[in-house]
Structure formats: C-alpha cells, structure tokens
C-alpha cells in the first residue's frame, strides 16, 4: 500500500508541490538559522580554541567569560605549579589596548602575552614568520585577517595597504614591531588580536597591582583533570576550568547577556511553526480533497491502522525530500554567507536536530490528516458524486 500512498500524494501535483515547498522552506529556515547561531556560538569561544595547549584555565573566581578576565596575583602561576597533578603552569596576559598604526590610525586591539620561556598560549597557526620570532626585541605577531582589514596602513601618498611583517606599531606609546602574521579562528568579538611575550605585554599594559589574566596549566600523565581542577581551586582559591568548562561558561554568559539565543530561537521557532502551518494545512487539504478515495479504500477493506500507515508514509516521504532540499538550500546559502564573513556551520548534530524538527512537523501534519481519515465513515462512498 506504500506504493499507492506515494502515488496518491505525488500524483496530486499542486498539493505535492505546496507541501514540498512548505517543508523545504521550514527545513531551510530551521537549518540555516541554527547554522548561523551555532557559527556565532563557536566564535564566542574562539580564544579557547586558539589556545589548544591549555588543559586547565585558572582565573579569578569572578571571571564571567573570556573577555572578562579579572587579573590575579603575579605569583598565581607559581601557586598552581605547586598543586599535585599539575605538570606545568604559565601566566597569560590578555587585555584591550590602544594600538597606533603607521599613518596615525588608532585601533583598540586585544593583546595576548604568552609565557616568555615556552611561548605556551601562542598563536596556533603561523601564516608568516615563526612563533619564536616573539623573542626578538619589541616583537608582536598580528592576526592576519585584521592585518589586511582593520589594521591597514596609510602610506605617505595616501594609499592604504595591509599591515606587513617589519611594520612598526605604537602600543601605549611604546614601540612594537610586527614579526609575524598568524591565522586565528573567526571570533565573535571584533577587536584585532596581537600576540607578544608575557613580560613585554606587561610593559605595554598600564601598570596595575595584579596583571596576570589567566594561568594556563597542563597535567601530569595519569592525573584526573576533574580532581586536579578541584585541588587547584581548594589550594589557590582561584577558579580552575577545563577547556569545555570555560567554553560552556563563556557561551552561556554571552547567550544570556546578548539575547542572541532568544532572537535565533524565535526565528527557528517561526520556521517550525510555519512548517507546521503550511505542511499541516496543505496535507489536511489533501486529505479532505481525497476523502472519497480514502473512504473507498476503507470500504474496500483497508483498516484504519493501514490507512494511518499510508498517511505517515505520504508525509514522511515528502518530509524527507523537503528536508533534503531544505538542508541543501541552507548549506548553499550558508556557504555564500560565509564568503561575506557571516558565521555558519553545519555539524552533523545540527543535521540530526533539524531532521528531528522536520519529523515533528511531519508527524503533526500527519496527525491532522489522520484524525480526519480515522473519523471518515466508509459509507461516504455511497453518497452522490
């Protein structure tokens, strides 16, 4: 009977196309908006992703997210190192500073100071130069994307060009020299990122009593990260988070503070509701228009259970096609959006999530039709044409 079910729905071209368009649009809207939302979410913790060496992030307990570092004592790294299970611990400076570019332009940038000796916490991928070049005098490494856009240099003749290795900058009236360009993950926050050594970063930064933003720590082999984190917290009085924990904290804080979740949530919910309304109404109309035929099938001996099966097959087949088209359209539009800098990712979890949402839409649509068919008296077939 599945064959009949498919021919019945696909043969009714107008309803089939209407149903397909509704489901495709719903799948596209849900997938695209969730993809953009997830893309933004991933960007929120790009700083953590770009610091893969750290196993534990130790920070002031009042820290709320990556951009909200509250300095801890300069001896914090030493105290963390003394905790059982910690193999190494290095300080990191992270803070906003004004950077003056050749040609007079001022930009607010994020300066990251990494451990002088090991350079742990440095840029994950160099595009030009080497990370060891940070050991040179006044050396800074600049994020490549910002070097080409925000930090462009105005030449004497008025023309603009991207910041290059060898160019000089002024940070808090102190000289800095670009020794390399690095590639970073796209970030939610827009300030250009510069890397230098920890001690040089402290020289650039305005003096404060406490200047260490984070302590990055690694574990001894065989140590339990949860146990070491608890031990660090109880020993130092600071907060110790795993990469996942810090990611979660940052994401939740940004989502809560910006309302981005509600905005995207509304759009996704809208996609779901539109899907239900369009698919539900179109399918219901299909069932109403075909009442006589469903009634005939009932009269000819088809049970309600098998009719229900036919309806579910009809909706699921169209739903699956609509899902494929919708996800495909979302993927194409997302790729285009990425070209202009918008965030969009399509992980398999999102594909599964939107498939579940579509299944929900299809089942609601099927229920609307099924109620009508179940209540249908087979005697309808004996009523006049």
């Amino acid at each position, binding site marked *: 009977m599945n064959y*009949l079910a498919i021919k019945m729905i696909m043969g009714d071209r107008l309803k089939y196309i209407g149903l397909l368009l509704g489901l495709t649009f719903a799948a596209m809207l849900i997938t695209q908006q969730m993809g953009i939302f997830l893309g933004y979410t991933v960007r929120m913790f790009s700083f953590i992703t770009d610091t893969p060496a750290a196993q534990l992030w130790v920070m002031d307990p009042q820290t709320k997210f990556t951009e909200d570092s509250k300095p801890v004592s300069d001896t914090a790294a030493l105290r963390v190192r003394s905790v059982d299970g910690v193999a190494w611990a290095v300080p990191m400076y992270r803070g906003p500073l004004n950077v003056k570019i050749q040609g007079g332009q001022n930009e607010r940038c994020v300066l990251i100071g990494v451990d002088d000796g090991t350079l742990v916490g440095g840029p994950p991928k160099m595009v030009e130069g080497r990370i060891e070049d940070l050991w040179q005098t006044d050396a800074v490494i600049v994020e490549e994307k910002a070097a080409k856009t925000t930090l462009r240099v105005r030449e004497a003749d008025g023309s603009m060009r991207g910041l290059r290795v060898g160019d000089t900058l002024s940070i808090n009236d102190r000289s800095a020299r670009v020794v390399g360009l690095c590639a970073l993950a796209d970030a939610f926050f827009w300030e250009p990122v510069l890397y230098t050594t920890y001690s040089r970063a402290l020289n650039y930064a305005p003096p404060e009593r406490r200047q260490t933003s984070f302590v990055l720590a690694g574990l001894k082999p065989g140590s339990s990260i949860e146990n070491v984190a608890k031990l660090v917290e109880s020993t130092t009085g600071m907060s110790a988070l795993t990469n996942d924990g810090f990611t979660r904290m940052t994401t939740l804080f940004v989502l809560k503070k910006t309302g981005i979740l509600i905005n995207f949530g509304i759009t996704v919910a809208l996609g779901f509701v539109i899907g239900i309304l369009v698919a539900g109404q179109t399918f219901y109309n299909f069932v109403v228009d075909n009442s006589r035929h469903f009634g005939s099938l009932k009269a*000819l*001996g088809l049970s309600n259970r098998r009719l229900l099966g036919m309806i579910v097959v009809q909706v699921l087949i169209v739903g699956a096609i609509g899902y494929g088209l919708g996800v495909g359209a979302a993927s194409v539009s997302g790729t285009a959006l990425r070209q202009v800098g918008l965030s969009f990712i399509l992980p398999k979890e999102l594909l599964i999530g939107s498939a579940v949402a579509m299944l929900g839409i299809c089942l609601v649509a099927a229920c609307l039709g099924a109620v009508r068919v179940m209540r249908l008296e*087979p005697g309808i077939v004996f009523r006049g044409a």
Partner: protein
Amino acid sequence: MTTLPAQSPAQTSRNPGELAVHCKALTKTYGKGDSAVRALRGVDLDVSKGELLMLVGPSGCGKTTLISVIAGVLEHDAGECVVFGQSLRAMSGSERTRFRGHTVGFVFQAFNLIPTLTIAENAAVPLLINGVSRRDAVGRASEILTRVGLGTRLKDMPNRLSGGQQQRVAIARALIHKPRLIVCDEPTSALDKDTGHSVMELLREVAIGPEQSLIVVTHDSRIFEFADRIARMNDGQIEKVVESHLEL
C-alpha cells in the same frame, strides 16, 4: 452459521444454504432525540446465491442505508443481517473490515477511481489491500480489464476514459478479488442509456455465478429488465418484492 428466523413476505422460500443475504427486522436510526431519522424500520429481505436483486424506491427511502448495512460499511441498530452465513452484528470493527475486503465488491455511482493511479492499479487495489504483491495484483488486474474490454488502456489514467469505461474499471475493481457479494450504488445513473445497458450486461455476465450475488440500488428504470427480482422500498421498509418490473 446463524439460525434463520421464520420467513416474511419479502423473503424467499429458499433454504438457508442457498441464501447470500438474510435480513430480518433490520433497523437503523441516524441521530438522536428530536433530530433522529429512522432510515430502516424493520427491513426483512433475502437475496439468493446467483441472484441479481435491484433495490428501488424514492430518494431517502433507505436504499443506500440498507446496502451500506449489508455491505458492512454501516452498523445497524437492531435486527439480524446475515451475509453468506456470517452475522454482521456479531463482528467487531476489524472483522467487518476484513469481511468487506474478502467478501464484498463495490461499484459506486461516482466510480471513485483514484485519479493518480493507472486503471490497472485502480483495479488492483482490492488485491493490494488483501496483501497480494503489486506485480501479481497488477497482472491480475490486466487480465480482468481485458475481460471488460479495456485491455489496451491499462496504463491510462482514469481521466482519459469515458464515463462508461470508468465504470468498467470500477466493475473490474469490484470483481478482481472474487467477492461473493457485489453491491452497486446507482451504477448507471451517470451513463447514457446504451452505455448503461452495456454496463449491466457486463455485470450480469461477469458478476453473477452460482456462489455470487449482486445487489443493485438504482433509480434507473431502463435497467430494471436485468433484475431477477426487484425490491421496492418506501419509508425505511421493503414495500414490495416482484420478479418483473412490469409488476411494479
């Protein structure tokens, strides 16, 4: 097998083993209270095996309700309705559904062919419902459509056929699973005289056998001549049963 009650004027004198349908004191009321409509008011009717019985009468007299009950698509309120030895009242809903699928064939006034299926697929529907594979069902549909003169149109869609041809497809659909009882609701009312005659000739030729019976509800006096007996209904009751339309 149900024990049959005493004979009434609308019943035949045949023994129970020769009866296809036996209705006794059948009642059916639609609605409740003041708006209740008594569609059947104690119908007594027998249809023999191998018989073509026509049900006639004015609109609203209960003809369609009666064949709906006999065909198992409508439950009656009281009385007895036994079809080929099976009491419909004793059946559950799912048993009645199975009974319809195996024992009853339908020919509807509006043909009720599914417009998105080919005529072979339409004719094959009862077999598909009964679990026959699509290939076998369509194969058997092709054979029976050839018998009704549509062997060259198997892949046509219903809207490509004339009314008479569509009714032939409906007849093929009604016969394909070899049901013992075929009920036809106004099978010729949408057809012209000649086409109506050829449809009735076809029904007589292919739908009636020693173990098969045919009940035709009709207003169309042009086809009365095809009946073995004619039962005239009025106001929810069988008013008269005659063997020739000339006696009506």
